């Protein structure tokens, strides 16, 4: 009873705050009915998109998302140019940090405990909402060589692991998160510019905006410390390279009638495990590898330091892995639940098969259900 009494006034205060604040819904963070008094906003027919900070449910870890307006983007890949209609979205203000990613990594311990106690088991009925948690690190050095402080970008995860992170984060709460497409990523990085870098063409200015050329003693930089681009996005150039949804093969042609391609149509959906696209250059890239259109391509070699076969589904174990992280997007218009798997799940049977074998035969990695009740269930077993 004491608990109810003490929380009651707080609940009242919260309700009052929502009433005063011109937010449309408490559960629609980042969207306001009226333009904010200060700060950027993006006008849409659903309201004004603003920057917001969200908390990973069940933790005290927060992350900030900034609005990116819709628009048309001329997306060039090789000799191909696609005119892409970009729909409005929010994008992580910084790369996903170790503070955030380690909460996801912790699922390996949590899911194992659930399995020991036969709790929250994955069944045919609920398996759509299952994620695979990254395996525990055999040699943490491979993963944390470039630092694992809470404010450093998480690196070394496979694209599959990054996608599973977005699924986990989405299913914990109400908002749909996914990786950006390459076209979205470039468009957001440009923030309206047409130059090599978001701030212009002069690479001498790059150090104000980017961690690159090993300027932090073999470490990634703390996120958000360098200047942002015009839309408030930090570290798009340098620091961790960033996964996008695309394979490194050219995208399909745009619509035959010459109309603009949707974001989904402009994605080069992968048909092989490698190569996939990593954008923006890294903490160890040279300036000319950190432009808006720069891309690195993942390869099987990034797993050559993995001593085991099948190799990890969730981790690289190489110098190149130390260069790769990711950030989130949340489209204003979220797809139906049935259309979300293509952003979240293994896109090739071989990726899923390896993950399943690692889990079922080797005891490496874990599988579990993610829903809004997960944080309480975790609290209960600890």
């Amino acid at each position, binding site marked *: 009873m004491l608990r109810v009494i003490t929380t009651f006034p707080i609940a009242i205060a919260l309700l009052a705050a929502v009433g005063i604040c011109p937010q449309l819904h408490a559960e629609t963070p980042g969207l306001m009915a009226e333009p904010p008094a200060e700060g950027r906003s993006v006008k849409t027919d659903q309201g004004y998109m603003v920057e917001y900070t969200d908390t990973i449910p069940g933790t005290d870890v927060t992350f900030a998302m900034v609005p990116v307006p819709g628009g048309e983007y001329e997306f060039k890949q090789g000799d191909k140019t696609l005119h892409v209609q970009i729909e409005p979205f929010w994008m992580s203000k910084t790369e996903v940090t170790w503070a955030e990613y380690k909460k996801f990594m912790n699922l390996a311990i949590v899911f194992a405990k659930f399995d020991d106690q036969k709790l929250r088991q994955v069944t045919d009925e609920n398996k759509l909402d299952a994620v695979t948690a990254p395996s525990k690190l055999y040699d943490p050095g491979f993963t944390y060589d470039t630092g694992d402080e809470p404010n450093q970008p998480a690196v070394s995860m496979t694209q599959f692991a990054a996608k599973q992170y977005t699924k986990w984060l989405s299913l914990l709460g109400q908002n749909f998160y996914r990786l950006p497409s390459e076209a979205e990523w470039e468009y957001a990085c440009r923030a309206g510019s047409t130059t090599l870098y978001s701030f212009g063409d002069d690479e001498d200015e790059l150090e104000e905006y980017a961690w690159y050329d090993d300027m932090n003693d073999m470490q990634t930089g703390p996120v958000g410390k360098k200047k942002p681009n015009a839309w408030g996005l930090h570290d798009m150039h340098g620091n961790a390279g960033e996964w996008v949804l695309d394979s490194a093969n050219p995208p399909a042609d745009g619509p035959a009638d010459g109309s603009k391609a949707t974001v989904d149509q402009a994605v080069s959906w992968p048909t092989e495990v490698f190569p996939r696209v990593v954008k923006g250059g890294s903490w160890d890239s040279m300036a000319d590898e950190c432009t808006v259109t720069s891309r690195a391509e993942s390869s099987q070699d990034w797993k050559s*330091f993995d001593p*085991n076969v099948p190799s990890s589904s969730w981790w690289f174990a190489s110098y190149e892995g130390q260069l790769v992280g990711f950030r989130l997007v949340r489209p204003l218009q979220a797809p139906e639940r049935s259309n979300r798997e293509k952003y979240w799940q293994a896109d090739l049977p071989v990726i899923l098969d390896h993950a399943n074998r690692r889990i079922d035969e080797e*005891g490496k990695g874990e599988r579990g259900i993610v829903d809004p009740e997960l944080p309480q269930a975790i609290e209960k077993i600890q």
Partner: protein
Amino acid sequence: MSDSSSNPSPNSRRDFLKHSAIAGSALAAMTVPQYAHAAGTDETLRVGLIGCGGRGRGAAIDALMADKNARLVALGDAFMDRAEGALTDFTANAEVSDRVDVTKETMYDGFDNFKKVIDSVDVVVLATPPHFRPEHLRYAVEAGKHCFVEKPVAVDAPGVKHVQESCKIAAEKGLSIVSGLCWRYDHAVRATMQQILEEKAIGDIVAIESKYNAGTLWHRGDNPEWSRMEYQVRNWLYYTWLSGDHIAEQAIHSLDKCAWMLGDEAPISAMGIGGRQQRTDPKWGHIFDHFTVFFEFPNGKHVYFTCRQQDNTDTFVDERVLGTNGQAEVLKNVVYDNNGKRTWRYRGDRPSMYRVEHQEFFKSIRDGKPIANGDYMCNSTMLAIMGRMACYTGKTLTWEDCINDTNRLGPTTYDWVDLPEPPVAIPGRTQLGDLASVYQG
């Protein structure tokens, strides 16, 4: 630098160890090496894998990648499902699958699988849990086979001595013994060691702060149909007789780098503190989850070593080398001066050390110039066992206390029975012989 070509002074402790191990042996009389003939470049080398876990599968693929005329012809594992899983992986690997000649008839299970594999190959990859290594290696070298030997090479002192003798036989027969202590084959670490040992970039080494602090590892669950022997072998990490405990199974990589820097000399003594705080559930067997060991080496050098496997603790894996004229971090491949300013960083190529060790292994066979990693792989294994002994007993132990310990861990015959488990060691109460006596009842 890859092989054990360092030249210890004749009176060094290491030399003593090496010679005492074979003293009185008839082998000592066989002084003329009978080199196996060089395989040339075109001859097919038949490769067999014993121990079909993740590492064994990786090593077999590394072997095939290293040599285009190597063919994988036989697999051995205590369990047929593990051998079958390995074959699935080999078949699925487009780069090597055309050189996998394994059939149902050349996959062997049970505890004697190793004999059938070794009998049918030229080169063998030994990748079972470490307990079985001494027996497998001896059979392989007696049969005249080149060996890739995963770390650690034993779980007790009698096992280390047995492996030392096997390496002597291998040397006499001109067989290559390549160790799975892979950092010795890493280009960046080799370059860093060259800075430390040859360029004297940090002056003389005073002490090494060595850490292998990590989280917990896998568990393969239980099955009501499994005997306790099967349960232990499938979850071998958690039983000292099988793995040597995590100080030997995993953290040996750190101790091996320390040994490398100190000339692969045996230490004088070890004092250690260890125990089990987090991983207390019976499913984790009886091994510890943390060790701290202070090793004293000749000439006043010290190694301050920690390792742990505990979740939600800060992890760190590297050696910080303290010199009279600066410091180095080995895995980070950097050297600092005495003011903390970085004076060197590795910028060269970074081929996979797992690939490199097999490339050098197969080249040594082709060229008829055998690699002999036996000395350091035995010494580093014994370092880890010594650290474990000091922590289990709570006693400061000399090298002689440890290398002369005669307690052999594990059952003397292998069968799918309900094997007992030793209790978790308690410093101050546990004696060196306690772990062995469990299996003698």
